[in-house]
C-alpha cells in the first residue's frame, strides 16, 4: 500500500527526501513570550494557550521550562517542536552532568547550542517552527537572548516573540530600566501581557510568570488578568454614526 508518496519535481534542488519529514506549517501553536532582566535575574511571562489554527484548543500548556540549574526557556510556535527541543536539551544537560566536574552549562552556552540547532535545521529546509527566549543567571551575570526559527539570534535587556515584538517591546523600551525590583518587573510584564490579551487574537487569559535568580527557578501558578471594558466610548460606539463599526 502506498501512503501518499512524496513527489519531487524533476528540477528539484532539494535532494533525497523519501524518508524525511518536515514541518511545512505549524498545527498547535503558542503565542508571544515576553521577558526582561531585573535586579536579581530574569522575569519571563507567557500565556498557557495552545491554538489550533483559529481555535483556542488547549488552555493548560506550559510554554516555559527550566533548563539545568541556570537557565529558563520560553517558546512560541509549534508545541511539538518545542517538546522536541526540550528532549535535545535534556540530553545536553545529562551529558553535562555526567562530566561531574563541578562545571555546568550556563544560559549563554545553552543559547548558543539552540542557535546552532535552529540554524542548521533551517539550512536543511526542515525548521523547528519556534521562536525561543532563553534567560538565566550564572555567577551574578544575567543573560537574556532569543533565537528564531531561521536562526536569527541576539541578546538584549528585554526580548519578546511574535506579537510581543510589536506590542510589548515598545512598552518595555519606554519603561524598562536597570535594577528593576521584582514587583516592578512583574507589573511591567503584566502590563505587556494585558495589551497582548486585548490585541492578539491567539492570546488567552491565563498566564504564568517565571523567575530565575541565582537561587533557582520558580514558576507562578496559572492566573488570569483583569481587563477593562467600561470606557463610555465602548458602550454605544455607533450612536453618532449608525452603520459604522
Amino acid at each position, binding site marked *: 500500500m502506498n501512503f501518499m508518496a512524496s513527489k519531487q519535481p524533476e528540477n528539484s534542488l532539494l535532494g533525497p527526501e523519501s524518508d524525511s519529514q518536515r514541518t511545512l*506549517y505549524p498545527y498547535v501553536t503558542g503565542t508571544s513570550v515576553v521577558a526582561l532582566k531585573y535586579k536579581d535575574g530574569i522575569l519571563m511571562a507567557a500565556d498557557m494557550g495552545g491554538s489550533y*489554527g*483559529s*481555535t483556542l484548543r488547549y*488552555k493548560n500548556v506550559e510554554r516555559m521550562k527550566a533548563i539545568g540549574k541556570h537557565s529558563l526557556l520560553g517558546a512560541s510556535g509549534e508545541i511539538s517542536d518545542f517538546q522536541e527541543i526540550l528532549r535535545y536539551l535534556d540530553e545536553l544537560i545529562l551529558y553535562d552532568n555526567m562530566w561531574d566536574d563541578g562545571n555546568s552549562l550556563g544560559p549563554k552556552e545553552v543559547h548558543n547550542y539552540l542557535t546552532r540547532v535552529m540554524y542548521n535545521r533551517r539550512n536543511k529546509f526542515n525548521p523547528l517552527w519556534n521562536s525561543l527566549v532563553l534567560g538565566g543567571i550564572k555567577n551574578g551575570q544575567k543573560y537574556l537572548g532569543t533565537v528564531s526559527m531561521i536562526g536569527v539570534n541576539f541578546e538584549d535587556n528585554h526580548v519578546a516573540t511574535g506579537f510581543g515584538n510589536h506590542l510589548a517591546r515598545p512598552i518595555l523600551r519606554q519603561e524598562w530600566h536597570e535594577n528593576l525590583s521584582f514587583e516592578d518587573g*512583574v507589573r511591567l510584564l503584566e502590563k505587556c501581557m494585558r495589551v497582548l490579551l486585548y490585541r492578539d*487574537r491567539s492570546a488567552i487569559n*491565563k498566564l504564568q510568570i517565571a523567575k530565575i535568580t541565582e537561587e533557582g527557578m520558580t514558576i507562578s501558578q496559572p492566573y488570569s488578568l483583569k481587563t477593562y471594558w467600561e470606557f463610555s466610548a*465602548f458602550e454605544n460606539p455607533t450612536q453618532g454614526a*449608525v452603520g459604522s463599526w
Partner: protein
Amino acid sequence: MDLNMDLNAPHSMGTTIIGVTYNGGVVLGADSRTSTGMYVANRASDKITQLTDNVYVCRSGSAADSQLVSDYVRYFLHQHTIQLGQPATVKVAANLIRLISYNNKNMLETGLIVGGWDKYEGGKIYGIPLGGTLIEQPFAIGGSGSSYLYGFFDQAWKEGMTKDEAEQLVVKAVSLAIARDGASGGVVRTVVINSEGVTRNFYPGDKLQLWHEELEPQNSLLDILNSPSPEPMNI
C-alpha cells in the same frame, strides 16, 4: 492546515453572531472583535446595526462589505417606509439584504442575520449566509464562532422562551464561542426588539461566566503572592 485554500469553498468569518426568537419578539447578539489578520483592530466594535426602528442586522465577514450592504438597505428601507406610510416589515428588510447579497455574490464576503418585530408577523429571524440564500429560522447563528455553538443550540434551544431566557441564552452562547474562537472576543452586545421597542445591552468581558480552564481574574500576581496562606485544616 492547507495554506493554498480553495477560493471557491465557503469560508468562515471572524465573529460570532446570533439571532433568536422568543414569545414576544427577537434577541440579537454578537461579540465585539474586529481583526485584521491576527491583530485585533477594534476590541469593542458594534456588529448589530440598525436598518429601521424595528429591524436590526447582525454583520459578519468582511467589515467593509457588511457595512456597505447594510447602508444600502437602510437607504432603500427609508424610502420604502415613506412610500408605504408605515414601518417596514422584517421580511422586506431581509429580502433587500438578500437581493444585494445574491446579485453581487462573486464580489461580497458577508454573512448576515436580520432580526426584528412587525405587527403582522411578530418577531422574526432571517439568516442570509454567503451566496445570498434567504432562510427564515426560529434561531440563527453565524460567523466563525458559530462552529462551536451547533451542539450547544441543539441541546439548549427551546420554542416559546421568555425574553429573559432568550437573552441569557444568547449571552451564554456568545460567551462560549468567545472562549474557543480566536476570531471572537471582547464584549457581548445584545439588542432586544419587540412591540414595546428596542433595548440595547452591553455585557463586558470581565462580567461573563467563567468556562472550563478559565480562572477568576486578578489585579496582579503580586496580590496572589502577598495574600495570606490558607489555614491548616483540622480533620
